[in-house]
């Protein structure tokens, strides 16, 4: 996938407040990587990174321990959720 025609950063970030519940719902099923979440949500992965990292920063999601050769982290709901 190429990323020409990006949406503005501010607009993508505003979407977080709506997307967060869908992301939480998907992670409740099972831990997922960013590309897996992007696939499930139908949104570009660079936008999903922004949403997941905001949720990580404010304590909603946490990363799983990663295997040596895995390029992607899996994310899960943090203990408080």
């Amino acid at each position: 996938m190429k990323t020409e025609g990006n949406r503005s950063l501010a607009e993508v970030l505003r979407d977080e407040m709506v997307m967060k519940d869908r992301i939480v719902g998907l992670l409740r099923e099972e831990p997922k990587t960013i590309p897996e979440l992007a696939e499930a949500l139908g949104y570009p992965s660079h936008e999903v990174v922004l949403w997941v990292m905001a949720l990580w920063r404010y304590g909603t999601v946490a990363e799983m321990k990663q295997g040596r050769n895995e390029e992607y982290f899996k994310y899960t709901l943090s203990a408080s959720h």
Partner: protein
Amino acid sequence: MLLKTADFMNYDHLIVGGGIAGMESALTLGDMGYKVLLIEKEASIGGKMVLLSKVFPTLDCSSCISTPKMAATSHHPNVTIATNSEVEEIGRNGDGTFRVRYRRNCTFVDNAACTGCGECEIACTVSIPDEFNFDLVARRAAHIPFPQAVPKKAKIDLRGASPCSAACPAGVKAHGFVSLVRSGKYEEAFHLHMEDAPLPGSLARACYAPCEDACTRGDLEGTVSIRHIKRFMTDRYYGAHPEPEYGPPEERLDKKVAVVGSGPAGLTAAYHLARKGYPVTIFEAAPEAGGMLRYAIPPFRLPKDVVDRDIKNVTALGVEIRANARVESVQSLKEAGFDSVFLAVGSGEAWTMGFEGEDLEGIVDCMGFLRRAYSGRIGDLSGKTVVVVGGGNSAIDPARVSLRLGAAKVVIMYRRSRSEMPAHDWEVQAALEEGVHLQILQNPKRFLGKNGRLTQLEYLSMKLGEPDASGRRRPVPVEGSEALMDADLVVLATGLRPATFPFAGAIEIRRDETVNADAETLQTSIPSVFAGGDAVSGPSSIVEAIGQGKRAAFYIDRYLRGEPLDGTTFDERLPVMNKEAVIGRGPVSKREPIRVKEIAAGDRVKSFAEVEGCLSENDARASANRCLDCAGCSECHQCIRACPANAIHFDMRSEERTAEVKSVILSTGFRLFDPHEKPQYGYGRYPNVINAMQMDRLLSPTRPFNHTLRPSDGKQPNNIAYVLCTGSRDCSAGNPLCSRVCCMYSIKQAQLIMGALPLADVTIYYIDIRAFGKGYDEFYEQARGMGVAFVKGKVARIEEADNNDLKLFYEDIEGGGGTQEVEHDLVVLSVGLMPNKDVLKLFDNGDLAADPYAWVKEMDENLYPALTSIDGVFVAGTSSAARDIPDSILHAGAAAAQAAAHVERRRA
């Protein structure tokens, strides 16, 4: 020491900019015993250094060495820090000292109370790019700049009033509840509304929504559907809570208030007064409470069970409503023991128009018609012809009601043209869809009857003449145009009269029969009597009346507590945001407003069922997500609720300050080169092209991501490229100078990557490596030894490959020559340091000289470092040239010594 309001206004030295250089100068001067004022425009001191990962060549943790310095500066007894402050102007006094005018920008947080716990951030509903992470991640409108911030205090990013909230006469935070609905916090949205106005169900249906008229998105593809969003949150709340969740307040005051009239103004005043603890009694002449909500607005627009539920919000507080209780005099209420009275009697009476035959049976005024229709006293109108005279909203409702009562023909007769009709266009449209006939430029002349009952009206055609006082063209009868029309019922909707006549003797009434009340306090000619709503303003709107009820409650409370009514402001608003500036922030994708379902016109006239539907949950959130967050913070007040220290206060305001100083040190630092200026590198278009400051953040312990990951998909990059001299040594980018630090910070980052991502390859594309300082060349060699690849080549352009990897095209200088193409999965642009030109504007007479590249000019760098073109003004750190941290600190020491010498020389 952090600035407190009472701090004195004279200092020895002013330092502008609290980066490493500014802090160093401040500490040096403070240690010498001078009084220093340090002004920093950001919320924390520390500048860029505290945001770096580590420093070259020692690889010491940058924030670990910055934070003690930041703490020392903030605790130094001789150094006063003003963060969030902007110098507006520095002027030179006749005696060689300086006068500084600066502005302390309001953070809406009481620093003395805030503990930096961060609860507000977690609760906040607005997501904004984080400038301290160079836009890699979101922060919240309520935020603590970064974990090591000094002072570590929250700040609310509220930049003004959002147009929607600013437009609401009742002070409802439209942006706030929209933001809460977007976040899925529906009950919170309802509660936020209740802070200002207790009748959300009615407003959600019948408010004219000035918020929507003001909405910035209205200048794009359509306003945010604020009213429908309110309908969604209120219906949902009422569905779950048929009764209010609260009872009367525990504290009951002994002063009693009488409210006359139970329309929106009266109900709102009663609500706010009762919340404060006053016992309130509402006297209502009609059999049921609600005023126009109940007796004017038809149930197909506002179902009466919604009005009932709204009113419960008021009565749950212990407010007593006495129906069928017409008040005839203010005196009677005084005698009954009330300490204050609020007159909110509305404007629901009829004017007599003086038409011949106006007293025939079958001619009614608008309110009389509606009241009788709703109480069943006007029954079936099957087969009848109804003529409604008038062009305002009060003409539309009787017409639509008549259709529902079965009328065969309903005509609205209006004397001007359609465009002059005061009724809202969507209301006229709805009436026309339902089958109402509009006869414009016509007016009744007289009514004809048989046995005292109306049978016909004679009317005239009109033409438009000169504009009248209202600016609308005056209708003039066309002579000889008389015609006759059969009619069974005529509704005169030609204006409403304030119901103030019983009080005319006691309080001042204006010629138009409205109450003469003070515009700010709503106090009448009797100090204990206040008045508001349509009784004061003439026919207006629900939300205006609610606004006045709230205002009256504020001033009645002050009156009853014996406080003066002047010297305070009710509901002081911030300046409204400029819509063009909001739209100018960046592109907005097209998202059409979501329409609500309505009953088809043909069906809806068959009953009084509500015409307009409610948004679904998904549609409500999607609608709310069209909001542009005009002011940043939405005033959703979640932070206030979350803050355990009660530190957040939205009534705080920015302050203008002045100070007198003997010398000035400028340490405003540098600006990073903006790589958007080199579009061939794709920065801003390709997510995996980032700048070096972003990479420093990704490598820092307080990084924005959970690891060093690439922004396109969260993968750990394994083949990273550095493009040196981005925006430096580049005349095409307007900067021929070397930035001195890019080679070294890139080498630093390469070494750190080797540690963080052991499997990754790093390639540095350079023109030549500048490793001039102590230990720098060794640092470079160390990187080579670790396996960092150095390629002498100038990168011409970057393209994106299919998986967000990047194709780099570079001129091979050392190898085989020609253009080479390579792939990487992350590219870091080693951007240069540029002058911060803002500093040149600080002096009122423009005397501060710049060098040819716009850095602050040092007049004699070799012999007298830090001296600028103005006697007594010095420069420190990267304000005058690109420097690394050790050099900045050294230079700041020199500036401090020069400034001290200047002050001493003048003393001598």
